[in-house]
């Protein structure tokens, strides 16, 4: 008879094996030329988008704060990491770390003053911060100014992206499924009650922003080192909206939803590449339609679990499992 601990370890090893298999298969397909660069590009994009969507979901979906300036944090990470490799000639891992940490610091700086703002006001403030960050980048010639930064070494590849995506999902998922995650979620549910029950809401709101921006910065660093050129315009509010659409469509409060939406929308984007303007119109319509008819997005606040399809969860609408809190 296995103990709970042994069952958990077994499950974790199983997942690790599956992930390694996925990584391995694709890795060798790329190396062997079976997957051409176009597919590789899209897989990379999927990874980056998953990191962006899941990190934004932590802030918007789980913590209930409305942030629409996420691209700003991505920009900080991108430029930060690029500076480290280009100017300081330090290894890729350090560059990514520095970029992510810089973005996290920005997250704290943005989070602290905007804490007492609600809903619409918070949204506009985060948008404003995103624009301020972009405006600052445009004005700093040392990092390329309005022309952007090019010549960034192409250090990111499938392996880096895949495992860092896995790490992001793991860290955020572990955070959510813990007492800290519950504290974060309680703020979304009823902030005044959460505060009355002993939750330091300020701390957790800033924490959500910080962790979210940390990973956005990571995504930025990866982006910079794959596409070897970055411009301030790459990280404008249209990019922020892009990420927002993924989070909303997937379901605010569902990590699985964000992953699915990131994959689906990246693929949609790629297939509609030829009809560029049409793609964006479709995006916009999709957003409107979803908000009007299914505002909880694809997954709502539910996560994927193997007993999703079993008889137990086909009970009446009311009986849901909320977020996948370990039982």
């Amino acid at each position, binding site marked *: 008879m296995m103990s709970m601990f042994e069952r958990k370890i077994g499950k974790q090893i199983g997942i690790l094996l599956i992930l390694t298999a996925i990584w391995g298969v694709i890795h060798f397909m790329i190396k062997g030329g079976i997957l051409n660069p176009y597919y590789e590009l899209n897989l990379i994009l999927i990874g980056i988008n998953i990191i962006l969507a899941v990190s934004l979901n932590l802030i918007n979906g789980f913590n209930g704060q409305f942030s629409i300036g996420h691209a700003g944090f991505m920009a900080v990470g991108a430029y930060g990491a690029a500076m480290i490799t280009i100017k300081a000639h330090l290894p890729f891992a350090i560059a990514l770390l520095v970029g992510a940490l810089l973005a996290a610091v920005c997250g704290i700086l943005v989070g602290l003053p905007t804490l007492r703002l609600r809903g619409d006001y918070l949204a506009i403030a985060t948008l404003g911060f995103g624009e301020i960050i972009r405006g600052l980048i445009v*004005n700093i010639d040392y990092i390329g100014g309005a022309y952007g930064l090019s010549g960034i070494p192409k250090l990111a590849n499938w392996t880096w992206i895949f495992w860092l995506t896995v790490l992001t999902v793991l860290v955020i998922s572990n955070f959510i499924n813990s007492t800290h995650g519950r504290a974060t979620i309680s703020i979304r549910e009823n902030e005044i009650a959460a505060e009355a029950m002993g939750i330091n809401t300020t701390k957790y709101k800033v924490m959500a922003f910080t962790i979210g921006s940390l990973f956005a910065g990571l995504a930025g660093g990866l982006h910079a080192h794959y596409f070897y050129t970055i411009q301030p315009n790459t990280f404008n*509010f249209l990019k922020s909206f892009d990420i927002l659409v993924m989070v909303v469509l997937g379901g605010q409060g569902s990590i699985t939803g964000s992953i699915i939406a990131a994959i689906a929308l990246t693929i949609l984007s790629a297939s509609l590449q030829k009809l560029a303007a049409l793609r964006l119109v479709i995006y916009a319509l999709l*957003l409107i339609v979803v908000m009007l008819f299914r505002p909880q997005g694809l997954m709502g606040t539910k996560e994927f679990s193997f007993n999703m399809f079993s008889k137990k969860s086909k009970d009446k609408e009311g009986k849901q499992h909320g977020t996948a809190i370990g039982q």
Partner: protein
Amino acid sequence: MEVFLQQLINGISLGSIYALIALGYTMVYGIVQLINFAHGDVYMVGAYLGFFATAILGWSFLPALLMSMVVCAILGMVIEKLAYTPLRNAPRIAALITAIGVSLFLEYGMMLLVSPQVRTFPQVLTEVQYKLFGSLVITNRQIIILVVTVALMLLLQYIVHKTKIGKAMRAVSHDKQAAQLMGINVNNTISATFAIGSALAAAAGVLVGIYYNAINPLMGIMPGLKAFVAAVLGGIGIIPGAMTGGFLLGIVEAMVSGYGKSLYRDPVAFVILIIILIVKPAGLFGKNVREKV
């Protein structure tokens, strides 16, 4: 001193545009508590309609202006009915996201329709420069912008304070349910608000087209955001606030442009926003409201 006065003149022109757009934001927010992200794009549509009227149909300034205002008023009402009315009782975030969707739809739809290129507005009004006090320049276009803006604002004040629909708008802004109980048709009042706001934005669009001679499908994004900042600065939901905020922001921006780097123009507006939100979120004219526990 001269730089200051010149930038003041420029700032007032710029501020007029922001004020006109800000009025739409503030009226809509006051009545349905929604940040109508699509509002900046109505301004863009207004500019294109003006372009269409003058370049294609060969109309002169006033008819083009009026047509643009009327069509955009209708556009505003249509957007409201289709996208916002169904979400009137939904969480504010849902309505905000939908507004973003509408905004994107207008931008990219227009791009699809007319191509992303910048179009040149025909020279409806040949530029005439007037020299004041030495080297100060004020153009006839700037005068027209100011005159039209002031005229529209006076008209708005009249509507809001001296007509029945204006009274209804004020009542619904205060307390929707009470207004309904008093027999006011809330839906129509909200539609009227959107219509008026959109008409003002359209006017701004036409004026900008004439002033800058260039329009493009994404031209509404920045002015839209900045006009929103202006509305917040003055006190969101407060009409005199939007007017004041608009002019203030225009002047500040012109000053920054004149004295500093013009690349700082955009971030400056957002820095002002952050400062206001932290120091006095209710804006210059606003009052703080406490949440009931």
